[in-house]
C-alpha cells in the first residue's frame, strides 16, 4: 500500500454566515502502487479537496493520511492542475526544472532530466517557448512533465483535461495511458467524466456529494486498449451513468 487515508473529514467555514459546510466525511481509502485510480463524482463532492489534502496543500479537519512505504513523511506527490498553473514568466524548460531547482538539484542534472521528460511528453522543439505561445494540449504536457520532474511516487491530476477540446482530450488520454505505462507511477485522477473514468481507470472511486463520501469502489478489469464503443465498456458506462445520475440529482436537490 502506498497511501492510506483513514476516516478523513474536511469542513469549510463560510465566514459571512458562520455556517460549517462538510466537504468530506469519514473517507477511508487505500491507494496501491502502480494503479490508475479515478475519483469520480459530481461537482461539490469534495474530490478536488481530497486531492489537495493528499498533496499536503490543505490540512484535513479530522482523520489521518499516511504514506506507509515512506516511513510516514517526505513528499511523494506532485499535482497536475486543471488550468495548468504554469509560470508565465518561465519557458517550457524553465517550468519543468522548477521542482528540482527549488530542491537544489544542480543545473546540469536538472536540465538533463528535463530533456528526458520533454522527450517523454513529446514537446521536443518547444523548450524555449513561453506558456502563452503553446496550445492548451501542449501546456498540459508541460504541466505533466513539470510534475514528473520531482520524481514523485504518486501523480495527482485535478481534472487535467477538462479545459481542452474533445479531440485534444482524446489524444492526451492515450498519451496519459502511455506515460502511466512507461513510468510505472501511481496516478490518482479526479474527473467528472464517465467516459474518461472508464477509458483510463484501473479502479474507480464513485463519490457522493454533500457531504463527499465514497459510494462505491469499482475495479475495472476491462482489457486495454479500451474503446467506448465496446460492449463491456458500454455496459460499465450505463451502470456508472445510472449511479452517478442519482448522485447528481441528489446534489442538485440540496
Amino acid at each position, binding site marked *: 500500500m502506498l497511501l492510506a487515508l483513514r476516516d478523513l473529514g474536511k469542513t469549510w467555514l463560510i465566514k459571512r454566515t458562520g455556517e460549517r459546510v462538510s466537504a468530506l466525511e469519514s473517507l477511508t481509502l487505500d491507494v496501491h502502487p502502480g494503479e490508475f485510480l479515478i475519483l469520480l463524482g459530481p461537482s461539490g463532492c469534495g474530490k478536488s479537496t481530497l486531492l489537495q489534502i493528499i498533496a499536503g496543500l490543505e490540512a484535513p479537519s479530522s482523520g489521518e493520511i499516511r504514506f506507509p512505504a515512506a516511513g510516514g513523511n517526505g*513528499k511523494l506527490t506532485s499535482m497536475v492542475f486543471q488550468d495548468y*498553473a504554469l*509560470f508565465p*514568466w518561465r519557458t517550457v524548460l524553465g517550468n519543468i526544472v522548477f521542482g528540482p531547482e*527549488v530542491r537544489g538539484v544542480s543545473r546540469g542534472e536538472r536540465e538533463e532530466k528535463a530533456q528526458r521528460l520533454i522527450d517523454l511528453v513529446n514537446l521536443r522543439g518547444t523548450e524555449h517557448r513561453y506558456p502563452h505561445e503553446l496550445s492548451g494540449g501542449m501546456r498540459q504536457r508541460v504541466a505533466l512533465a513539470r510534475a514528473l520532474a520531482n520524481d514523485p511516487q504518486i501523480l495527482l491530476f485535478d481534472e487535467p483535461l477538462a479545459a481542452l477540446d474533445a479531440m485534444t482530450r482524446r489524444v492526451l488520454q492515450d498519451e496519459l495511458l502511455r506515460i502511466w505505462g512507461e513510468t510505472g507511477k501511481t496516478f490518482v485522477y479526479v474527473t467528472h467524466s464517465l467516459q474518461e473514468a472508464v477509458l483510463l481507470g484501473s479502479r474507480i472511486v464513485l463519490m457522493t456529494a454533500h457531504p463527499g463520501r465514497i459510494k462505491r469502489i469499482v475495479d475495472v478489469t476491462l482489457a486495454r486498449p479500451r474503446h467506448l464503443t465496446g460492449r463491456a465498456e458500454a455496459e460499465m458506462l450505463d451502470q456508472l451513468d445510472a449511479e452517478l445520475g442519482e448522485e447528481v440529482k441528489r446534489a442538485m436537490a440540496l
Partner: protein
Amino acid sequence: MTASHLRQIASVAGLLALWQLLIQTGRLSELFLPAPLSVLASMWDMTRSGELPWAVLVSLNRVVQGFVYGAAAGVFLGLLAGAVRWIEDVLDPWVAAVYPIPKSALFPLFLLWFGLGNASKIATIAIGVLFLVLVNTTTGVKSINPVLLKAARDLGATRLQVFTKVILPGALPNIFTGLRLGAGMALILVFITEIEATKAGLGFLLWEAFQLLDTRKVFAGVVTFGLLGVATTWLLQWLERVGCPWLQRST
C-alpha cells in the same frame, strides 16, 4: 514607412513650418512665441556655452537619486505588503493618508527638515516615486493567480523561494507600470523643487529665463524637459523588454 508615419511627420513638420512663417511675416511677436529656429539656435548656444548640459546634469542627478531611492523602497515595501498580511495592515493607513497628497506640497516641509541643498529635493522626488511604485507593486502581487503559489509549494518551494521565484516575477509587469508613472512624477517634481531655493538645474534655468522674459530660453528649457521625458520612457521600455521577455506579443 507606412501612410500613418507619413501623416504623423507631415503633421509635425507642417505645424512647425506654419509657426515659423507666422513669426517671419510679423504676425506673431517673438516675445510670446519664439520661432522654432530661434529656439534651436538658442539651445545650440546654451549647449556650446555649457549652460544647458550643466543644468541637465544637475537635474538628472536629483531625478536619478530620488527615483532610485523611491523605487527601491516602493518595490521592497510593495512586495512585502502584497505578500504578508500584517505588513499590509501596518502600511495601509499611511498609504491611504499620504498617497492623495500632492507630493509637491511636502517640499516646504522637506526644505525645513533637510535644508536648502539637494537632500530636500531628492526626498520630495523619492516620496513621489515611492507611493506610485508601492501601490502598483502591491497590486501586482495581488493579481498573481493563487494557483501558481499552490503549484510552487506543491513542487517543494520554501516560503522564501515562493517569494523570489513566483511573487517577484509575477509582480514585475505591474512594477514596471509603477516605474513608468514614477519617472513622470520625478520629472514634474524636479521642476517644482528647482523653482525655489536653488541656483542650478533645468527648472531653475527655465524659471530664471521666465523672470527675465527670455522666452527663447524658456522654450529651450521646455523642449529639453520634453526630451528628457522621451528618453526616460525609452529607457524604461527597454528595461521592461529585457526584464519581462514573456510579455512580448508573438507576431
